[in-house]
């Protein structure tokens, strides 16, 4: 249970999961438990010790998505997203912020693998491989729009405010990006900008590779978030930031091609969420079997046992949907978009309930910072909202299910 193996995993998938689990149990969980104060260090660089990423390097988990020819790892493509789900669940079971840091690298590496011209791959993959602290970021969200852009508003007025204009052999980028995962720490950014203001977002957005040290590009702050605090979320400003023309990844149609990133991303998001849920369950199951109230351990009080059953059931339901959705994405099933959004939104709502039970069953200890349960609760809360809000995700599900009606711009009936 909770960690059941239905036999559908390959030997490699099982071994990879074991390695991740060992790394989490041996390195990450003890660090997080012993250093719980560091989450609140107001110097973002001081929060997660470099040895944690160094450890991630030992199991080779930072550079998934980098092709083997560049020293990365070739997962079985037909089960790649399922593998991502397994691994991100395990990492998030240790710390969801760490999982964010790492999965951002995978997702952006896939984008580079699929869309970057060869010379950019040859330039950047080796740098990524060399440096254990090298992180990637994906910059879509702006002060005036994020996941809601995917609602049926594909009109010029709703397009991105960040603009890129070609000037000779350089693109000049101006604008702002906010709430960017790894934004504060990354070394290389994929930035989305409007390149044609006359058309809708889907037809007029391009994406660019922006190295951190590019003049005109500034990381203005690290956001202080309620959860996933070991991932340093950042705010970025572009002021006449000049990017060589060959750093363009996809011209005008970048949003469409980014689906590659988004579908895997939704699954990974749900799987990280699941990992937080599993951590909630494990901690709680352990607690209620060890702590005594009224002369007997908690689990022997039936009201406690019932809540634990509810946690387990929700976790299994989330896992089942993630498995189905990841299979759909791996197989490029026509329902993949619907299912991956379902998995993401369902995981976020169910694991929030699981985390609430965990908090409740720990009594006063649940509210204590050094106990680590409130951290799981905060981490779970972030997911409601990360990578699209619950409501926007639901809208996307409906839009995909009923493209002719719900998929149209929400104006008057024709």
């Amino acid at each position, binding site marked *: 249970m909770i960690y059941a193996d239905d036999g559908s995993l390959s030997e490699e998938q099982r071994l990879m999961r074991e390695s991740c689990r060992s790394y989490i149990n041996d390195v990450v969980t*003890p660090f997080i*438990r012993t250093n719980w104060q560091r989450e609140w260090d107001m110097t973002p660089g001081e929060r997660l010790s470099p040895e944690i990423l160094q450890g991630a390097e030992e199991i080779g988990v930072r550079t998934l998505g980098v092709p083997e020819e560049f020293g990365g790892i070739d997962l079985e493509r037909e089960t790649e997203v399922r593998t991502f789900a397994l691994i991100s669940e395990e990492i998030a079971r240790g710390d969801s912020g760490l999982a964010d840091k790492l999965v951002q690298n995978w997702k952006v590496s896939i984008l580079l693998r699929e869309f970057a011209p060869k010379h950019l791959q040859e330039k950047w993959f080796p740098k990524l491989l060399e440096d254990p602290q090298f992180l990637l970021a994906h910059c879509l969200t702006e002060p005036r729009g994020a996941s809601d852009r995917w609602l049926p508003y594909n009109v010029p007025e709703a397009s991105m405010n960040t603009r890129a204009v070609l000037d000779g052999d350089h693109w000049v980028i101006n604008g702002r990006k906010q709430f960017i995962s790894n934004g504060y720490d990354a070394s290389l950014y994929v930035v989305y900008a409007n390149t044609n203001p006359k058309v809708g977002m889907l037809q007029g957005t391009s994406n660019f590779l922006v190295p951190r040290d590019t003049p005109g590009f500034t990381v203005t702050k690290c956001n202080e978030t309620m959860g996933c605090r070991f991932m340093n979320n950042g705010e970025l400003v572009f002021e006449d930031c000049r990017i060589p023309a060959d750093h363009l990844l996809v011209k005008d149609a970048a949003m469409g091609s980014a689906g590659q990133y988004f579908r895997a991303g939704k699954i990974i998001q749900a799987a990280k969420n699941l990992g937080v849920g599993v951590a909630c369950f494990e901690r709680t199951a*352990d607690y209620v*079997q*060890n702590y*005594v109230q*009224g*002369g007997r351990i908690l689990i022997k009080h039936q009201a406690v046992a019932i809540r634990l059953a509810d946690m387990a059931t929700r976790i299994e339901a989330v896992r089942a949907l993630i498995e189905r959705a990841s299979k759909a994405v791996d197989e490029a099933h026509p329902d993949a978009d619907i299912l991956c959004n379902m998995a993401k939104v369902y995981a976020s709502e169910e694991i929030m309930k699981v985390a609430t039970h965990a908090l409740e069953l720990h009594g006063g200890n649940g509210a204590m910072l050094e106990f680590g349960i409130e951290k799981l609760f905060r981490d779970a809360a972030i997911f409601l909202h990360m990578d699209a809000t619950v409501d926007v995700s639901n809208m996307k599900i409906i839009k995909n299910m009923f493209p002719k009606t719900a998929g149209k711009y929400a104006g008057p009936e024709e």
Partner: protein
Amino acid sequence: MSVLILADHQDERLDEATAKAVSAAGQVGGDVHVLIAGQNCRPAAEAAARIDGVAKVLIADDPRLANRLAEPVAALMVELAGGYDTLAAPASTSAKNIMPRVAALLDVMQISEVVGIGADGSFQRPIYAGNILQTVTSADPKRVMTIRTSAFPAAGAGNAAPIETVTLTDSPDLSGFIGSELSASERPELGGAKIIVSGGRALASAENFQTVIAPVADALGAAIGASRAAVDAGYVSNDLQVGQTGKIVAPELYIACGISGAIQHLAGMKDSRIIVAINKDPEAPIFQVADYGLVADLFEALPEFRAEIDAKATA
């Protein structure tokens, strides 16, 4: 029917484990002989001769047997094996090294870490870290076994058995002794400690482990242990964790201080001979397995306990 016991000894003295193995061998039945193999090991042989129930002591005093390297001692055992139905030894690291070699040379499947001997010729031994007891019988013409000494009392010491010299004829020259380094007076390791003083989350800090647990442990020459909760809270390092996921221990005396008695913790120490629990919560499950329970605040009880130890030491 007769039993040959390979003694655990340091040449000039005999380890207590041998007398326990003798009492186990008494349950097997038949004459019990004890083999002292070593160099300048007469004192150990004389001590063995005093153990009640020993019919004869065999001494093999030979430089080739110094330090009891596995290959020559096993060769000697095999040479002597013809006269015995059962070859046994206390399950010390020395015997664990030697006895399987003997067994294989005799084409016998060894029975390791025997904790119970049945009248029907069956043997009981722990498997899965002591979570399960297995009862087995052997189809082999001889039995080779190691005895978990904590499961048997030591035989008395009022005997005067004859001591007979035996010689090693053929010794394979495969390994050599270079040196040994026995633990200094620092705290014993959890695994081998006779007494363990263990602390739980109630200690509330790493400092309290040093100021409250350590003085008692040091006064008793004990190892320090901890519950998982205490380890997780960072009060002590991981290697001190007693429990299912930590060390499984079975000391003579286990003193659990401020440990509630989680199932996982109990799995790691329930085979201790005597368990003492000190906890201010009278309902703590640890009391259900403790031989002696004291409902008290450990911060008051432990300094008092230390004072008692000191008082006895100076008395």
